[in-house]
């Protein structure tokens, strides 16, 4: 891999030069800031920006890129084509942004490779008239106008194209981590430096003793973004005070949930911010070895991250005697094997040790005995990303964002059936209604909203009447935690009325059952048993007492499992049988599914038209759902 960076003026690669002192860095930072301003605010010729992420690649963004390069060359048009990170507007992909000299930055939606010629005619050769409708070139619709410096900085209007802040998707967003998304080339370290990057690193290395850094993070009340919301400062302090050498810093970049892709996008879009945060963290706790543990299923993120670490090493931010401060650190990108459970902190350590990634009992916690039995500080990608900004602006700046108990912003992936599928960043404390109906734009095809699944695979459902609750880590009356909603890693799935909750509950349990590592009995057998019951209900063989069994067994699995997977696996089920009891009872008593999504139930209903009574089971309990049947009762175990 070449240790070079892409020069934005010529498109050619530019070697990364080593900086060996703070003065060196400050000189480079000054030059790069000036260069960035010059090249972005006053482009000399039309510039095409194409966002690259795994999502846009799936939509054909590389094809669009090469189509632009080839067509501009063939037609002899002087214009630059640049690769940048991607804004998160998945529903409009592939998005192409065009800046012309003296004109704002206009984004166009759904530009597939066959529309490239028309877009060149309209926006590069011709002048954009700013028409959202009735334009001469069919099929090309602008998305919005972005600012030159920041996504919400656009003020100059072009026709009736909305400003970014006017789109419902962007309306409630506040982008702190994602501020450079869509602006910098993730493969160019100088873009990041030009945007103020690595400034916090020098501040931390030269101006702040490690204890001050930890105090700042503690004061800022930065809570872990991986799911549990554990205060990061407390963890760092524990790692700093732990006895044992060497100490390790591990970035947990292994998210394997079926509806979360925020960490992947961070690594594909802004890898240097993660590297910077990780160096500061390692310096604060006195570690000299770092790992970034990425699941194997993210090839683009791995390559981008590896490139970023190489560049940081070449620039002198990693290695021996970083910027002449006398501090050494090296970071490795470590590719995990791809198992959801590897994202659990103690399992991840075994993954790095080349063993089966199974969680272990705690204590000792990983800050005392982690990788190879040494003190290890494991943090999520998003948590580490906040560190540079908190160091730069101070803890009070961070506390002013979000709510009192959950400060800051949160990256959210919204999936399922909203209009705007995508990646967004909202301040904590935003109501769920804003997330579904503004960031998500409501439900696709204007169907009715049914429920939203929270917390990746491990949270409850929220109905329409719960949507005024706030997105936080807490359990207060105003927080989503009060109705089994879990913020978790920020993955939300929106359901419309065509989705069968019985089917989806089975899907979640099947995922957890498949991903259960099998080490502890409650999770290994509990998820299997719960799945058996759900399978039975979904195939028309359910019994009324199954409802009680699901509830009771779920509680046992939650209270007795070893790690977070088992403790959270039954939450969607518990929430579903509470909120959608009617739907389950309909499946159990009448073998009917109003949504028509459970194929077995649909088949029974079809057959029943010919043979009334087909598939009816003798019920052991009364039809009002109260159980008179047999339920195996276990003695509850309370966990201290």
């Amino acid at each position, binding site marked *: 891999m*070449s*240790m*070079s960076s892409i020069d934005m003026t*010529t*498109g*050619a*690669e*530019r*070697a*990364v030069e*080593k900086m060996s002192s703070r003065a060196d860095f400050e000189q480079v930072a000054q030059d790069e800031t000036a260069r960035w301003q010059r090249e972005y605010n006053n482009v000399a010729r039309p510039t095409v920006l194409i966002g*690259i*992420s*795994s*999502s846009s690649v*799936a*939509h*054909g963004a*590389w094809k669009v890129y090469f189509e632009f*390069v080839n067509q501009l060359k063939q037609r002899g048009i002087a214009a630059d084509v640049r690769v940048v990170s991607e804004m998160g507007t*998945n529903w409009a*992909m592939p998005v192409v942004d065009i800046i012309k000299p003296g004109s704002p930055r206009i984004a166009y939606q759904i530009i597939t490779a066959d529309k490239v010629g028309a877009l060149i005619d309209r926006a590069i050769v011709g002048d954009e008239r700013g028409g959202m409708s009735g334009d001469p070139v069919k099929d090309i619709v602008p998305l919005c106008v972005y600012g030159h410096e920041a996504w919400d900085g656009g003020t100059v209007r072009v026709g009736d194209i909305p400003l970014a802040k006017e789109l419902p998707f962007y309306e409630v967003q506040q982008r702190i981590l994602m501020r450079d998304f869509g602006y910098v080339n993730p493969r160019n370290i100088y873009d990041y430096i030009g945007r103020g990057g690595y400034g916090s690193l020098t501040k931390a290395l030269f101006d702040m003793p490690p204890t001050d850094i930890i105090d700042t993070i503690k004061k800022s009340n930065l809570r872990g973004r991986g799911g549990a919301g554990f205060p990061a400062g407390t963890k760092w302090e524990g790692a700093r005070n732990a006895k044992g050498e060497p100490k390790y810093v591990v970035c947990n970049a292994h998210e*394997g949930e*079926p*509806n979360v*892709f925020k960490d992947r*996008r961070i690594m594909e879009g802004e890898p240097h911010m993660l590297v910077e945060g990780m160096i500061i963290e390692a310096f604060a706790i006195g570690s000299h070895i770092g790992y970034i543990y990425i*699941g194997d*299923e993210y090839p683009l993120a791995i390559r981008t991250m590896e490139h970023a670490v190489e560049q940081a*090493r*070449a620039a*002198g931010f*990693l290695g*021996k005697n970083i910027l002449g401060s006398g501090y050494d650190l090296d970071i490795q990108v*470590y*590719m995990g*094997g*791809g*198992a959801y459970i*590897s994202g659990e902190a103690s399992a991840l350590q075994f*993954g790095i040790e*080349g*063993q*089966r*990634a199974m969680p272990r009992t705690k204590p000792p916690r990983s800050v005392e005995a982690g990788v190879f039995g040494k003190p290890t500080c494991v943090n999520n990608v998003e948590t580490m990303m906040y560190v540079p900004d908190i160091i730069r602006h101070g803890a009070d700046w961070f506390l002013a964002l979000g709510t009192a108990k959950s400060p800051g912003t949160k990256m959210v*992936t919204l999936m*399922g*059936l909203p209009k*705007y*599928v995508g*990646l967004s960043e909202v301040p904590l404390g935003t109501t769920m209604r804003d997330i579904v109906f503004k960031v998500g734009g409501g439900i696709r095809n204007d169907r009715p909203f049914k429920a939203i*699944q929270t917390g990746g695979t491990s949270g409850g459902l929220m109905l329409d009447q719960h949507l005024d609750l706030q997105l936080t880590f807490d359990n207060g009356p105003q927080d989503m935690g009060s109705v089994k909603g879990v913020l978790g890693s920020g993955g939300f*799935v929106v359901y419309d009325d065509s989705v069968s909750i019985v089917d*989806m509950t089975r*899907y*979640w349990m099947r*995922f957890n059952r498949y991903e259960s*590592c099998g080490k502890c009995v409650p999770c290994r057998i509990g998820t299997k048993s719960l799945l058996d019951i759900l399978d039975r209900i979904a195939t028309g063989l359910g019994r009324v007492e199954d409802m009680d069994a699901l509830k009771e067994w779920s509680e046992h699995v939650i209270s007795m499992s070893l790690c977070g997977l088992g403790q959270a696996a039954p939450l969607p089920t518990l929430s579903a049988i509470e909120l959608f009891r009617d739907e389950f009872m309909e499946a159990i008593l009448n073998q009917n599914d109003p949504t028509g*999504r459970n*194929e077995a139930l649909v088949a029974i209903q079809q057959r029943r038209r010919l043979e009334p009574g087909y598939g009816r089971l003798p019920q052991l309990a009364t039809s009002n759902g109260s159980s008179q049947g047999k339920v195996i009762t276990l003695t509850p175990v309370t966990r201290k």
Partner: protein
Amino acid sequence: MSDQAHHYAVAREIDLSRVREICDQYRNISPEEALMPVFQGIQEEYGFVNEAACYEVAHQLNLSPTQVYSSLTFYWIYKWRPGGKHRLFLCEGSGCYTTGTTRLRRVVEERLGIGAGETTFDGKITFQPFSTCMGACEWSPLVELDGEFYGFVDEARMNQLIDELNRQEYDAADQLAAPGSDAQYALVAPAPNSGDASTANVAQISERAPSLTEYEAEQTAQSGPQPNSGNADTR
């Protein structure tokens, strides 16, 4: 691991001397740490790992074969047999699942006769449903075939994709086959009522989409190979 025996795909045997070379790249870190990178290297090169490689790696890294084998079998990325010539991925992330991937999975199972993670016995097609989101959920259900993504795939469209594979892989053989010969037992079952299914809008499957690799090649071509910046020793 005995399922290696009845695999007919044209696949390279894992060369144990090459395995030793891969192990040698990781001598500077502890053997436990090196285990995963070594096997990722082997899998990248050959597309699968096998028992012989397990023993060789255990010997080279001075680990017990049991430990090597137990670690490998835990992670689903390691394949124990070579994948097919064509890779058919079906996204089963929750976004796609809400739009109905169950039916698509059944289409594949019925027509190709293979389940999740399996390869047709002639080594032509591998089918892999997975739940790691590809982040293109507004196109759901999403299918990836040989690096090309297809959105809004319904049963008819899935049938078209399989028809196209069928045409590429089996038609020539079918024309040559005399009635009663082996080739008549087509591995791909005909689509139900596929008589006049239009396949005009199915892209040419063999054409690979460009990727980061092409981009890097283009960037290097523009600037010429860069001299190393001389900082390699900082590693």
